[in-house]
């Protein structure tokens, strides 16, 4: 089927306009709303390996003699790491409670934590505490912080064993 050149050019312009309208409609929209109004975000993110599940054992002379010469290490330490238990409280109420077993075939890997919690804006007291040692009852690391959160503000809670535990950013 053929049509007159002028009509064809008009139809081409129409089709190209539809094509461009499609691009315009989806190249920067519809808008995605990631966070509702009146909310802020607390992010708890860190990497940490728990302590060994039991204390190292000092081998006796008999035990060492029973081993091959190249295997006679004086200490017998377990590979398996403790389960990481983390709790985040806001104004005394628990808003995050995690129990993370160590990954790996021999359960000897470090744990990666990345959790977002949406919280109402305003002044809140946050407490984060963690147990990373199966030999210890209660928490091995604890820290608290009071923040006045603005809408969409991000409060980042990190953990660094070398500087003593949890930090609030």
């Amino acid at each position, binding site marked *: 089927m053929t049509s007159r050149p002028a009509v*064809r050019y008009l*139809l081409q312009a129409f089709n190209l306009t539809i094509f461009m309208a499609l*691009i315009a409609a989806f190249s920067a929209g519809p*808008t995605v709303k*990631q966070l509702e109004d009146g909310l802020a975000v607390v992010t708890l993110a860190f990497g940490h390996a728990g302590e060994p599940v039991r204390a190292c054992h000092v081998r006796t002379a008999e035990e060492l003699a029973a081993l091959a010469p190249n295997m006679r290490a004086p200490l017998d330490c377990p590979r398996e790491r403790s389960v990481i238990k983390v709790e985040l409280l806001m104004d005394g109420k628990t808003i995050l409670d995690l129990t993370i077993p160590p990954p790996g075939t021999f359960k000897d890997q470090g744990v*990666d934590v990345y959790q977002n919690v949406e919280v109402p804006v305003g002044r809140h007291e946050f407490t984060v505490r963690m147990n990373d040692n199966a030999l210890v009852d209660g928490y091995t690391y604890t820290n608290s912080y009071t923040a006045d959160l603005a809408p969409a*503000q*991000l409060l*980042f809670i990190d953990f660094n064993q070398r500087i003593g535990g949890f930090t609030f950013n």
Partner: protein
Amino acid sequence: MKLSANPIKRGYLYLEEWFNLSFGKEWNPLYHLGPLTFFFFWIALISGLYLYIFFNTTVDQAHASLEAIVHGHVLGIGSLMRSLHRYASDAAIITIMLHVFREFSLDRYRGTRWYSWFTGIPTLWMVVLLGITGYWMVWDELALYVSMGASHLLDALPIFSDSMARNFLPGNLSDRFSTLLAFLHLLGQPMFLIFMLWFHVRRLTHVEVTAPKGLAIGCLIALTALSIYMPALSHPPVNLSKVPTEIHLDWFYLNIFPLLQYWSPGEIWLLVAGVTTFMLFMPWLPKKNEGIPAIVDLEHCNGCAQCVVDCPFDAISLQARTDGAKWENEVIVQPELCAACGICTGSCPSSSPFRKMTEDGSLKTGIDMPELPLDKFKQQTDDALAKLAGDNRIIVFGCGHGYDIDAFSAPNVATVHLFCTGMMPASLAEYALKNGADGVVVSGCRSGDCYYRFGNHWLDLRIQGKRMPAIRSRVDKERIKILGGAEIDGKKLHKQLDLFRQSLVQKTATPSVTTAKEVNHD
């Protein structure tokens, strides 16, 4: 009129017809989706090179340098280039998706074509990844949204020992990652994409990579107009102490990320892996049997290589002669690549109904189709000619993928079915005219849209005398009509057949004095 039972195919054919009406067959974008995608890629490449000259890839300066390009360059060139870069990339996704839809709806992805489909799926993913890294480089709120989303997805895979998402939290961001991104987006991914595209078209011949000039100019004007009317803009710069709340997403590239609000990364990977696996194996759901591949008869082949040139699927190649004949080469068929279209038979100079029969009384040629050899369809032509009665007798040769030619049947119209009109030697038309037909109609796929890529095009050129083996110049070409149409084009095709019949009536009334006029094709 016999309608396709497949509503998807019917829908596609109407869309194609609409574009034929608007752009004509030569410029129909649906016939040039690959070259159009290449054209958009070139626009993105050139505009991207312009941006890269002025762009600072560091985390601190990326956003500011892009803003300086967009708002500071004379005559708005920077803004135009940035917008063309984005919109041409978006346009490429639309043409790629139309390409996928077209091949699916016309059933051009199974059988020997599995390879192009199979290699096309990872190529599509590479295009999407290229777009994602592009948005990442800007280091605006959208980039942060993309980086967090991508990190969560990657963290769900057992690839990295440490969490990647933590890199995008306050105090952790470094320029090393932005350098890696710049390398990926500017060099690594484009190079890999070109490599994948080479694989994608590896089993095709005569690959078209240049869009028709008029269509390309039209698209460039449209993209420029859109860029001026609605310039592409950045989000505010990254602020790591603030969560981006409203994201103006490019849904062509970033559509997977909003799912993270509802699904876990593992579920999203499952979806992606499921869809990808399903698409990869679609050519075997169910498998298509192409028919028995072409066979070479060395006794009748002189290794002229016309079939090697004409084969649309690179299934025929040359090798040194093995039978001791005086010719230098012979042709061989790779059965796994052969679509059994028969185009090689039509291109073989030995395929002539005027040829002397062999001792066993059969007509032989250099390369033939076991399921419908030249001898058989010459016999079918003879049978059809014998059936013709009355005035203005027409014989119709039709392919298996266009309009159903049996709908033309009448006492003075007989039909012969072929796999593809390209398998018909042009000399068969002359043979029919000499043996009782007043007119010959060849009814194939829509012009420019052969199911086997080039069948109707090669035959058209042979009838016009522009491609070997061509029809002899003394044949009255006004008695040959080439029709092109799909299942939904019955009304138009019947009208064209009636007009052709009327022209034959007029020719009978006033005998033509010319013998070699321009071929009469629509």
